[in-house]
């Protein structure tokens, strides 16, 4: 895998001067993923924090070709660009390799963008879709999305006298993508550059549809000091709240297994959006959350085991 020194010689896809919040994880996701390849790139962004903050006319923070269409159609829009590229390649009008990357927030990917994403993945376009997942509709002021974890305080499922934040467990979009049978699906975080870079490298080396779901701590929506963005990403992995894993052609591999699995409260207590869970009377919620985190983690371990046996014929790495 490429090292940081080599990476530092590559073109930065973003300039300074964008309006993301201080300490925002989204541009970190963009920079680390896009710099993992030296190939020319074309990016499509869904409406959201990243899109709005990087392209307030006439200030464009992107140094590579970029298109924004609407909120729910980043995958469909990118499909069109990729289709035109394939056509031009067949006609001999273009011969350089181009990597096609879509960035969408969890809002534009889990919810309103799910159909467009599913269609693009099913059709087998050669593109990478990256969900920068900050677990709510942050750009419009922290509304709940399908990616919001249970118990989180958001403005459309807020904490109040009779409600304790989001009622539902978060949707498992990564598994939905695995079910599409695409060649590569990965989960990662802001806070482990090597993990994210290696996965992006792997994705860029594969021809076909790829999906990456990157947990991106948001200091505004989650409520913590901006400098802690990377630390919180790592804590999500250490508590198994957000496992770092990849599924290549159906074979599961968990990449970062915590040596000592931390209790989920270690993660929850760091953020304002979970503060209410520590009030007396909400202990049962903390227990439920720990149970569910454990259940999903065990399930993931089991999948790693079973796909290693089923597909690789018994080799368990």
């Amino acid at each position, binding site marked *: 895998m490429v090292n940081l020194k080599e990476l*530092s010689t590559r073109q930065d896809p973003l300039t300074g001067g964008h*309006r993301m919040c201080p300490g925002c*994880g989204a541009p970190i996701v963009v920079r680390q993923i896009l710099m993992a390849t030296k190939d020319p790139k074309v990016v499509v962004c869904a409406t959201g924090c990243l899109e709005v903050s990087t392209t307030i006319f006439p200030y464009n923070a992107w140094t590579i070709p970029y298109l924004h269409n609407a909120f729910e159609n980043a995958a469909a829009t990118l499909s069109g660009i990729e289709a035109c590229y394939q056509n031009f390649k067949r006609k001999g009008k273009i011969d350089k390799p181009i990597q096609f990357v879509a960035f969408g927030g969890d809002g534009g990917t889990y919810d309103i963008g799910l159909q467009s994403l599913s269609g693009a993945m099913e059709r087998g376009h050669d593109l990478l879709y990256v969900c920068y997942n900050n677990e709510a509709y942050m750009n419009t002021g922290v509304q709940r999305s399908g990616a919001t974890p249970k118990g989180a305080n958001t403005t459309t499922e807020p904490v109040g006298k009779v409600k304790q934040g989001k009622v539902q467990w978060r949707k498992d979009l990564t598994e939905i993508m695995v079910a599409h049978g695409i060649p590569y699906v990965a989960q990662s975080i802001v806070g482990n550059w090597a993990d994210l870079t290696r996965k992006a490298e792997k994705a860029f080396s594969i021809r076909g549809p790829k999906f990456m779901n990157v947990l991106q701590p948001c200091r505004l929506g989650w409520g913590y000091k901006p400098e802690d963005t*990377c630390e919180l990403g790592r804590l999500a992995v250490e508590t198994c709240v957000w496992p770092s894993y990849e599924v290549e052609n159906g074979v599961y591999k968990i990449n970062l297994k915590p040596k000592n699995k931390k209790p989920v409260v270690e993660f929850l207590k760091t953020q304002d959006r979970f503060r209410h869970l520590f009030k007396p009377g909400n202990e049962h919620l903390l227990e439920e959350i720990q149970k569910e985190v454990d259940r999903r983690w065990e399930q993931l371990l089991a999948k790693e085991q079973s796909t290693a046996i089923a597909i690789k014929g018994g080799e368990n790495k």
Partner: protein
Amino acid sequence: MSVKKPAWKELNEGDVVEAGTAVKFETGDWRSERPTWHPEICIQCLICWTYCPDSSILVENQKMTGIDYKHCKGCGICAKECPVKPNKAITMGPERE
């Protein structure tokens, strides 16, 4: 002081913008804390460079050369992630004394 903005006929067709024009927008004045780099103890690991959300760690020939204060927002990630011990090679201090 307001800058005169272009008339509609002076704009590019289809609202196309050239790459990298955001450099002209200086977010450095967002800071309430400022990072200071201590090159003498810097081990040139470039971890601060990869984690800077604002591309404000300046690098040349695979080595960090400084901080872009015109764009740095003072988020403190660079200081937090700096692995140098016992004293970090980047420390945060108040923007204004």
